[in-house]
């Protein structure tokens, strides 16, 4: 990964040398590689390589219907680019989105899962599309180097490389493209979204959700664009003060809610699987937000309390597990948790029932051996008595 960072730094040095002579106009149609300066062309190659690395590492979410819908939304927002801006979903729980210089846009499952509806997602897509159209990936690098801030950027990138990779952070602007370009992307994105029938109230709501989660994040210093508290404050103010339609008038597309709830379920499992219980509590404690999530969210809130293990969390976990059982009695993880709770209370008959149901409903569960060991223990204790 360090090699990738150094390669990127070298690319930047080359671009810096050429910077004074460059005049970067926004794209107005799908560019061909021949339209690009050699330095920008190289960034497109790097973008393609970074995308290949994502794919090879198995970091892309493969839900064809959902990904297709995101791409349809992007094409609707930027019709003159006819699908050249391609959207993909990253298996990454940190809320973030990145637009690579070549028009590849990556949105993390942690960002999508937190958003409540299609309109909020459209706002993010419109913003990322604007980064590509305005060539912020390319322009940003010129500005950074012209300002002589290379050392700072390198330090930032090496710090972020842990989660996404230094090259990726550079290419996609994971840490932001700089305030001016972010403002520009917000303005252009909002106009595009409004033109497609989405209202700015949804942009404001999306930013408020992310601001709330950034305040209570598990990350000690969130540096990612959509997880940065001060930047989100500014964005909320900008969107509130902007003109144009306030409310979304466009009806949601068919089946989107069903697809989105499925993706949210994957996100909730990924978030708890990554040990981010604090972030989950922040996201799920709010009743209004849970109303826009799958019913299984009650189970994940219970799990988040149990794993956070603060004072009173044991009671909260127990109470939310009861709610989860009432809402989703056939969700296998609920049955396993109920079995463990029953075993802890000493009601082994109930535990046995729950564990057996769990194994029936989830025959390929990765923790099957553990659950079978609990059943064996219950059987042995029953025989002794």
């Amino acid at each position, binding site marked *: *990964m360090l090699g990738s960072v150094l390669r990127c730094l070298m690319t930047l040095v080359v671009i810096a040398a050429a910077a004074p002579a460059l005049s970067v106009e926004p794209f107005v149609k799908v560019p061909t590689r021949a339209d690009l300066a050699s330095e920008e062309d190289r960034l497109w190659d790097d973008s393609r390589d970074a995308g290949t*690395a994502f794919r*090879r*590492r*198995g*970091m892309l979410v493969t839900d064809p219907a959902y990904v297709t819908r995101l791409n349809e939304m992007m094409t609707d927002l930027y019709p003159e680019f006819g699908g050249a801006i391609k959207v993909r979903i990253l*298996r*990454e*729980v940190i809320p973030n989105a990145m637009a690579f210089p070549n028009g590849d846009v990556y949105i993390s499952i942690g960002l999508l899962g937190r958003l409540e509806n299609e309109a909020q997602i459209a706002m993010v897509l419109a913003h990322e599309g604007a980064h590509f159209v305005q060539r912020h990936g390319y322009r940003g690098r010129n500005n950074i180097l012209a300002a002589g801030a290379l050392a700072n950027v390198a330090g930032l990138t090496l710090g972020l*490389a*842990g*989660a996404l*990779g230094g090259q990726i952070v550079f290419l996609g602007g994971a840490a932001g493209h700089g305030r001016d370009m972010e403002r520009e992307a917000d303005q252009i994105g909002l106009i595009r979204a409004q033109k497609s029938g989405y209202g700015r109230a949804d942009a404001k709501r999306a930013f408020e959700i992310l601001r709330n989660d950034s305040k209570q994040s*598990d990350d000690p210093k969130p540096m990612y664009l959509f997880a940065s508290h001060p930047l989100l404050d500014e964005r909320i103010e900008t969107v509130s003060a902007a003109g144009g339609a306030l409310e979304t008038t466009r009806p949601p597309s068919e089946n989107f809610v069903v697809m989105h709830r499925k993706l949210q379920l994957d996100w909730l499992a990924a978030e*708890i*699987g*990554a*040990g*981010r219980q604090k972030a989950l509590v922040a996201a799920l404690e709010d009743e209004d937000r849970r109303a826009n999530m799958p019913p299984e969210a009650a189970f994940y809130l219970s799990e988040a309390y149990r*794993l956070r*293990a603060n004072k009173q969390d044991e009671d909260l976990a127990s109470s939310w597990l009861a709610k989860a059982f009432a809402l989703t009695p056939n969700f296998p993880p609920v049955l396993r948790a109920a079995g*463990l709770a029953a075993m802890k209370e000493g009601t082994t008959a109930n535990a046995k029932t729950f564990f057996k149901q769990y194994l029936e409903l989830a025959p390929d569960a*990765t*923790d*099957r*051996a*553990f659950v079978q*060991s609990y059943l064996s223990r219950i059987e042995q204790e029953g025989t002794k008595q």
Partner: protein
Amino acid sequence: MIKRMLLLLVVTVLMAGCAVWTRLDGGPLTHAGASIKPPVDWMHLAARKDSLVITRDGVAIQFIDAAYLVDDKIFPKSKQVFNKDTPPQEMAQRYIGELRQAPGLSGLDVKSVAPETVAGRPGFRAVVEWRNDRGAAFQRVIAGAAVDNGLLVLQYQSLKRFFFARDLPEFERVLQSAKRG
């Protein structure tokens, strides 16, 4: 004279750099709070202070890592407080969560989580898999148990293709021999 001394200094430093790997004769090895009986002719990375690392073909191919972790070394990223009475399955869940926050491992897949005895204590055994930037698949077995007030954890990581199955029996023997050092 000064040039000659500098040259000697450089040679000494370089030689020290070459000496960090020690070939193992199969005798007991204790390091970083863990004690194991390593396979013969594997190499020990003695320079590594916080865990006992051995390999046969190089750490990029395979390695076995053993460590006795205490306090904030157990969950350094999530800052969770370790409780020795935590059930093994939950301990595995917390440890894997910690692993997923490590560089490049957010796409890690859990293949199985099962009970395991480590140093005579009830613990867990998890098998996880992920791919690197070039698409090469790696598998890792993580076996851990609460011992006294810390976590004794042994990990075997290898390229999935060919090497994982070949060296897994060596790991099983190492795991059987593991204890707090």
